[in-house]
Structures are given as C-alpha cells and as structure tokens.
C-alpha cells in the first residue's frame, strides 16, 4: 500500500515537472533550429544556433538591450534590498504603536494597481525630463510593501540578545545593522534578491511607456519587438526569448536553496 502511494507521488511529480519543463525545453531546442524545423514540429536540438545568433544580432541590438536590462535590474535590486531591509529592520527592532500604524498604511500600497499610478507617474517623470533614464526605470519600484514585510517578518528570527550585546559594546545602530544583521540574514537577502531581480528584469508595462528612446530598450521590449515584426523567424525569436530568460534562470539556480529558506523565515512570523 505504501509503495503504491509512493509510486503515485512520483508519477504525479514527474508529470508536473515534465509539463513545467517542456515549454522551456521546446524554447531551447527551437533556438537551435531554423524556422522551418520549428514549425515542422522538430523537438531535437539542431545545428542552427550560431546562424540564429548572427541573424538575431543583425536584426536587434542585443548587446545594448541586455546591458540595459542588466544595469537597470542590478541597480534596482541592490537599492531595493538596501532600502527595504533597513525599513523592515527598523519596523521590527524599534517598533512601537505609531510605527505599526505607518506599516499598515504602507501595506495599503500593495493594493494599488500599477495601471492606476501609471499616468500620474508618467506625467511626473516626463515633467522632470527623466524619461528614458535609469532613474525613471528604478525609482517607482525601489520600495515595495512586499519586500518590507518580508524583511520585517524575517527580522523576528534575528536574536534580540545580539543587538543588546552590541549596544553594550558601544556599536552604533547603523553598525549593528551593517555588521551583524546583514551577514546573519543572508538567506532572506537571497530570497529578496531573487524576487526583486526577477520583477525588475521582467518589468514590461512601465518601461514600455517611459523608456522611449531606442538606446534605453530592455530585453523584454526587444523580445516583444521580435515577435511583432512582419516576418517572424521562430528560431531567432526563441533564441531571443532564451537569452531573455537566462539571467533570471541562472540567478534562481544559484540562490535557490537560500531562496526557499528565506521565504521560510518570512512565512514563519
């Protein structure tokens, strides 16, 4: 009986995994085939990767889009982690009634749909002449209630005694955060980094509106352009999609252990 159950579990997981991975496998294999083979239903990897790549860089400025996306996403993630972790730490360690009220007000921002703030934000940034700049890309999403909450919840697992002891040793509050809290909370930072970087990299609606110049184009915008052209080469398109998915995929694979632990710390509270 137990055995049957186990086999059923394996079967279920295998089916789920295959369904999850198949479109990704198909994308990778399509990136190495020419358009005719892709449409012909070829599933095996082909020999057209280099040709597709040459065609892709001929059609689109891949280097620029990739560089832009990398720069915007890294800057945004780092700043976001800094700002939100300090805030989450601040809310938990120095918490009092008034700060709790502020926190619940900030949480309301979670419900603000982006479509609602889109037009005023657009007017704000273009009014300042900041369109097509990295500042416009990152500023709206540096501080997010989700991340502040994640850090606040996780801070509960950080022992108060360490803070007390450090204060007796004469460490300043900022130093306690930087030298003691930061290294201890690595897995929370890893989880936050994964989520933030993914969101930053995949951001589409806001950049579509505010990043007007071709010089500020990002990877998702480039891929969307590839698919909207008059004659679509599916091998080239899928290679674009693949390149667009690599950074987030690699980041997840590197950080995945800490990622789960980090989410765990947050859910615990």
């Amino acid at each position, binding site marked *: 009986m137990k055995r049957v159950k186990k086999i059923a579990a394996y079967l279920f997981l295998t089916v789920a995994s295959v369904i999850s991975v198949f479109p990704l496998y198909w994308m990778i294999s399509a990136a190495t085939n020419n358009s005719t083979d892709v449409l012909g239903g070829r599933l095996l990897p082909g020999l057209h990767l280099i040709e597709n790549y040459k065609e892709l860089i001929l059609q689109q400025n891949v280097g620029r889009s990739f560089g832009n996306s990398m720069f915007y996403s890294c800057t945004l993630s780092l700043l976001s982690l800094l700002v939100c972790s300090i805030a989450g730490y601040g809310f938990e360690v120095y918490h009092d009634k008034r700060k709790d009220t502020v926190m619940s007000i900030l949480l309301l921002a979670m419900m603000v749909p982006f479509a609602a703030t889109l037009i005023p934000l657009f007017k704000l940034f273009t009014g300042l002449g900041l369109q097509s700049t990295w500042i416009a890309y990152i500023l709206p999403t540096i501080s997010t209630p989700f991340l502040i909450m994640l850090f606040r919840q996780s801070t509960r697992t950080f022992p108060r005694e360490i803070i007390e002891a450090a204060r007796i040793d004469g460490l300043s509050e900022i130093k306690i955060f930087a030298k003691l809290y930061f290294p201890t909370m690595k897995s929370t930072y890893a989880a936050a980094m994964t989520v933030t970087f993914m969101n930053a990299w995949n951001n589409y609606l806001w950049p579509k509106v505010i990043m007007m110049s071709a010089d500020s184009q990002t990877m998702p915008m480039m891929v969307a352009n590839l698919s909207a052209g008059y004659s679509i080469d599916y091998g080239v398109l899928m290679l674009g999609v693949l390149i667009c998915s690599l950074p987030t995929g690699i980041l*997840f694979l590197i950080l995945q252990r800490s990622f789960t632990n980090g989410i765990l710390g947050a859910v615990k509270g």
Partner: protein
Amino acid sequence: MRTSGRTSKRLTINQKYSLTGWGFLAPAAILICVMNFYPMIQALVLSFQTGIGNNLQFGGLSNYARLLKDPVFRTALVNNFVYLIIQVPIMLILALILASVLNIKDLKGKGIFRTAIFLPCCTSLVSYAIIFKTLFSYDGYVNTVLMNLGLISERVNWLSQEGSAKVIIILALIWRWTGYNMVFYLAGLQNIDDSLYEAAKIDGANAIQSFFKITVPMLKPTILLTTIMSTNGTLQLFDESVNLTGGGPANSTLTMSHYIYKASFEYNPQFGYAAAMSYVIFILVAILAFVQMKVGDKR
C-alpha cells in the same frame, strides 16, 4: 533625585532608538508615498476630468457615469473575473497539492522536482506569452502534434476563437505561477510539526483526512497571503493580454489594464477616463482583499 535622573536618561535613549527607527524606515516610506500614494491622489483628481490629451477640464463624475455605459470596459471586467474565478483556485489547489506531495518524507529527488516546477517562474512575462503564442499558433507545435496523432483533421486557430483563447491564457497563467505559490506553501509546511501528522495517523486518519484537518488549517495564513497576491495579480493582468492574444478576438481576452493602456496610449488619449477605470481596479482589489481577510479570519 537619582531615580528620576535615570528615567530621564533612559527616556532619551528610548527616544534616540525611536528616532533611529524612524530614520531607518524613512527612505522606504517616503518612496512609497511619492511613488504610490501621491500618484493615486493625482489619479483620483484626474478621474474627475474629461478631455483629450492635455486639454482637460473638470467633468465631475462623468467619467464614472461613462464607465457604466462602456460595453468594452464591461467585457474587460468580465474577462478579468473569468480569469480570477477559474485560474486562481485551480492554481492554488494545484500548488498546495504539489507542496504536500513534495513534503512527504523519504521521497527521493525532491530538489529536482522542486526546481523543475519552479523554473517556469524564471521566464519573463513577455517571454512566456510568446512561447505559448508560438506553441498554439496556427502552424505551431500543438497543432502539428495533434494532427500527427490524428486527434484533429484540420489545424485549429486556437488563439482566434473566443473560448480557446481564454483557455490558453488560463493555462499559461497556471503554468507560469503554480511553482511560485508552491514555494510559499513548502515554506509554510516546514513549520508544521511532524508529531501532528503522527498523532493523526495513530488516530486512524488517512492522508486526505490529515490534509484537510491539519495541512489546510495550519497553512491558513500562507493560503490567505497567496490568495490575496494572486487576486491582485490577476486583476492587474497586462502582459499576457498584450503579447499572447492582443486582447482579441473581438476583445474577448482583453483585460482592464490592457484597456486602460489602449485608452491612454493607443487611442486619442483619454487620461481622465483611464484614471477612472484604474480606480475601479483599485476598489475591486481592496474589496476582495478585505473580504478574503474576513473569510480567512472566520475559518
């Protein structure tokens, strides 16, 4: 004297800490105010104005009155709710089952399964929309396979029929987000003490009984969190509508956010009207979150 001196000193220390706390959370709070609340207020003001482009004048509630008469907005609203009602429960239940199965002790290769199921989450929204669009296109892989298997005699225009286009968007959403929610449940499950399950077993409960009697109640806060997040996300759907179906055929997959984008940037711009529509989304999200929290509390 002595004691009072001490208290005043402690007070200043506490005050100092409190001030430090304010300092720590100030950047985040100010950013949220400037980037979320301030635009929300502006959007509210905008929603009372009518006109094309920048030629706006005060129009009172006329934009909201207009909403009631707009068949396209009604279509988009219904579409959003169809996605919400069908997709969110299926996805969350699937994620919960996957997490529970992955939580079974002495199961080998959990890491690989977990990674595989989470991987779709790494693709960007634009990318996965394009992958699905290509798979389900007229000359796409799905048609080729079904033809070869003899299940269909003629290629099907999946994305240009109302029903199937909606189904594909729902399938795509489930594919993309199930793994993400599963991770939250996995984390939550690790907080449940094994002894609870052991005790239930001794009492003669089977796996399904302990799932409903232990797992679901213990995970309630996490389930609530993921429900609110998914509801919020579904009501704000944009990328899928734009890149997978373009809102078509005949607006049958158009979402509210996509319509707002069109009204602002593709048509002759109607910012006031778009702002009024966005307030409808805000109010819906807020109401649903409130209801979910209430329901979550009662159970």
